[in-house]
């Protein structure tokens, strides 16, 4: 779980809308908000809900991997 939190923390940090142009900012903000919700969920939920949140986080991190790599390297 700690690893999930750490990975989501890094994703939140990387998903910074200042790195992209104006027409794309809302997309990055959307991903940033989702990452924040997932981080809070992993931290606060228990039992079944926690498991759901962890699975969702894993999916989310897998899907956003390319975007985060591109954002880190500069679009």
């Amino acid at each position: 779980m700690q690893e999930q939190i750490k990975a989501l923390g890094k994703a939140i940090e990387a998903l910074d809308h200042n790195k992209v142009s104006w027409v794309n900012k809302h997309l990055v903000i959307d991903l940033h908000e989702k990452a924040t919700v997932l981080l809070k969920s992993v931290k606060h939920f228990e039992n079944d809900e926690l498991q759901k949140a962890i699975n969702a986080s894993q999916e989310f991190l897998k899907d956003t991997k390319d975007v985060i790599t591109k954002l880190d390297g500069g679009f």
Partner: protein
Amino acid sequence: MDLFSKRYTILVNDEPVELSIKNNKIRNAYFMDNRMTIELSEDIIKQIQTYPSTVINADKFDGNAEFTKAISKMMSQQLDLAILRNDKTTLSRFARSGLVGDDKTADFLQSINNPTGARKLLINTVDKTNTIFKVLKLDRFLDKLKEKIADTKADAFLQAFQQDQFNKSVGYDSKLHLNKQLDTELVTLASNFLKNHNIEVFDAEKVEDKQSEELFMQTALRNGFLVDDAKIAFHQTLEKNQISKYGTIKDNLNLIEKFKSNIEFLEKQDAMKNKTLKDFSTVSEDMTPVEKIDILVKNEEYLNMNEAQKLRVENDVIYDDVPITDKYLSNIDTSSADMGGYQEFNYNNDRLKSQHQVNTQLNTQQ
């Protein structure tokens, strides 16, 4: 209640977004000559209305994610619409502006629709992640989160993460941030916090002050504000409180200057009595030697001196203005120094100079 709607212009990378606001609601929004839909919260609308000018740079809302998201979404819709309609005027305007980014190739449309380009990649990722949240039933998820998060303390890792974010936050710069527009709720939160904790000054070296700053940032974060905004709000409110209580540094410096000149004036007034030698030196500060003598002969302390002392004083306070005398004074018999001695010294000095010139000429001839 407003009778007429008022028009405001928000400049985003020099491209204007025209907003007509009536009764704290957006009536119309225009971007690149097309009517658009834009949703902004009442707070942001109030900030726009209270701004001193009707033309506002979008940088003023820097850090406000809600505003950025709304404007960006509207622009994105405009771009999509222009692509669908093949509206070349709007597309060329987008191409010329800095709103689309730097990944432009010769063919603008091709670069936007490039599957590995920034826009396509982001749209695909947002779609994919939307599916994850649909499965989670996001609304129920968020409601539960709100219940769980309320008044719960973050664990050690989150605290470390938070601390890291605090350390990375912007440094407060009075010139940049004193007049920065912030969320009114955040400003109220900051002013209440400072009042409740009785904080009037902030010393970055003091541990207690740093702890108070962090405590406020934590409170602001829990209320959904950004770290940078929270820090700016803390220091901005503190500085504004100080200014309202003690005035600005400029005001205080002016006051000090005023006091200084008053003190100088009073000192001079007191010195006009011309009792001591100090009084004399204060009064005769900017006078010529001849004027100085007129004042000196009326000085009480000077009048009570014997002749030798008087002579020394005259040398000190009147003739000392000629700097070269210091250099050669030891060669002159000061006990018999008078105006004659001074002239003799000048005469000797001139003779030495001409002798030196003659010597130099002889040396060059040889």
